């Protein structure tokens, strides 16, 4: 817990997205329906309507302050509420002031503009209540405890990291670097904007298998294969993220601001259990760059990857499915 040198509210702000509309390059507006955002996931997907030519998005916001914000004996004055959009990939920070809905209300609302040219992937949206405390202007009194994800590309409002799966003939791909890997069934590329799995269509039947649906053994084999790929991805992504860590001058490693940071925050509790993620990151970084302990950590990294890939479930269903098939063959 952080200690603050002034009085604050102990409870967080609740932030909700209430509307999303896109301004298109021909000047018209397309209001997106509610499938563009999810309150549960706290995510907005600006790609839902399939527009590639939008110029800006206007996101309607509503904020509820915790009780006590307007108490007559509050330690602050000049209360304001600000919504802030940040994007570590493009170094963008945009803020907009919200206005109180009605006199005496805890609810504030307003609109935030998201410029298409300013983002490549995801931005993060949070809200702050700010006041003058003990004569100091601009103090943050409370804020959102979990920010919203604004994804400028995705067509589904989900918070978790999405993989990009692409199919390509490795031996004939225009991505010529894939040709060196012509005998591999799939490859993981963690240098792209989001981690990407290339599936090699040269392997006979692999596409059919991956696209299979239904309840037969095929689909169980597919799930197992997907779990295997996902394990590879999570492992590769973790190593990639740890290998690229930036270290503050005279300090510890810093969490990356893009999806690599998301991956680390998600996996570290399984890699180094029982400590805060910042401490876990420091320990992992020390093990990798220090004299010893890196090899020992591999089992835990693999464990974290297997859990994320739902490998146990896939193996379990696969075995049950095989047992059923065998039984049917015997009778």
């Amino acid at each position: 817990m952080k200690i603050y040198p002034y009085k604050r509210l102990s409870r967080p702000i609740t932030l909700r997205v209430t509307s999303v509309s896109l301004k298109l390059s021909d000047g018209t507006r397309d209001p997106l329906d509610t499938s563009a955002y999810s309150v549960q996931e706290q995510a907005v997907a600006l790609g839902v309507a399939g527009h590639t030519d939008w110029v800006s998005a206007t996101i309607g916001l509503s904020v509820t302050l915790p009780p006590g914000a307007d108490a007559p004996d509050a330690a602050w004055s000049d209360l304001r509420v600000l919504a802030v959009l940040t994007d570590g990939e493009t170094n963008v920070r945009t803020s907009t002031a919200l206005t109180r809905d009605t006199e005496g209300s805890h609810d504030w609302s307003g609109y935030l503009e998201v410029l298409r040219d300013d983002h490549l992937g995801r931005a993060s949206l949070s809200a702050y209540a700010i006041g003058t405390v003990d004569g100091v202007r601009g103090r943050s009194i409370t804020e959102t405890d979990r920010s919203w994800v604004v994804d400028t590309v995705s067509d589904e409002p989900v918070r978790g990291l999405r993989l990009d799966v692409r199919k390509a003939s490795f031996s004939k791909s225009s991505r010529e670097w894939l040709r060196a890997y012509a005998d591999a069934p799939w490859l993981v590329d963690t240098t792209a904007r989001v981690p990407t799995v290339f599936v090699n269509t040269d392997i006979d039947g692999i596409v059919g298998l991956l696209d299979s649906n239904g309840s037969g053994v095929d689909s169980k084999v597919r799930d197992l294969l997907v779990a295997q790929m996902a394990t590879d991805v999570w492992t590769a992504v973790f190593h990639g993220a740890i290998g690229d860590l930036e270290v503050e001058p005279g300090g510890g490693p810093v969490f990356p601001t893009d999806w690599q940071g998301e991956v680390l925050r998600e996996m570290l509790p399984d890699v180094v259990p029982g400590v805060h993620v910042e401490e876990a990151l420091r320990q992992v970084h020390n093990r990798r760059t220090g004299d010893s302990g890196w090899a020992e950590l591999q089992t835990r990294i693999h464990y974290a990857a297997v859990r994320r890939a739902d490998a146990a479930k896939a193996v379990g269903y696969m075995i049950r499915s095989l047992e059923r098939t065998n039984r049917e063959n015997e009778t």
Partner: protein
Amino acid sequence: MITQPHHVPERLALLSGAAVDTFLTEGLLRGEQVHSGIDLAKVAEPLPEDDARWWVEPIRSLVEDAMFEFRNERTKADAWLAPRLHATLRLTRREAADKRLWNHLALAVAPDYVVWRHLSESAQRVAAERFRGPSDRQCFSRLWWAAEIFRNGPDYGPVETACGNQDLIHTVLRLGLLDHRPTAQAVVRLLQDGKITTGREVNGLSVAINAAGATLIYDVLAPDEPRDPARLRDWIAEAETAPPVSRHDLPEGPDEDPVPEESLAALTDYFADLFETAPVRGRKSED
């Protein structure tokens, strides 16, 4: 020291991170041997052909001029090249965040510049991140982003000042605190006024700004104007007809509004006060 590859492409392209390794040889990192360019051209993904921005020649000639002009003091090339690269390669932030573009520029177009600028005299080697690395490390993207973050609307003057201080663009850029435009301009103004000068002072100030920023929202102390995306688009469209950037005078950036003077003044005063009391390595307390 290497020269340019035998085959330099005519147009910029995208080079995926996974394809980079083949060309990032030990010989290149030591500055002794460069690929021919032919194999690299095969794995690069082309950019749209009807866009004049992707012509390589204007960039190639800029880096050659930089290597000549600053042959005796290569770190000074940063302050000269950053605004000129930014005004030559006109990008949206969205485009500039694509690392594949910078990979291609460093590996295919100007590996000789990367080696010239970043070959470490003690290690006799260039760090691989100068070719393919985080945006605040890679040879060209760090300059482009420094120019983008420190320009005040069309005015590149603050960029020159900022890039003259290696600590500012080396360590402070990554902290994210400069993403608030008035903050970036206030730091530059303190440099211009001579209130802070050394790298240690820059680091001390940035630590103090960051620490205070944990409880203070600078957006309230120093509000910024919302940006009009059309102004940047117009400037990018003008790349089609723009003459080469001047080698002597600073170019002009996109016609966006500068940071409101009131915000800049308020924040400069605030940081100056903060700096008075900030611990700076090597600075003796005077009382």
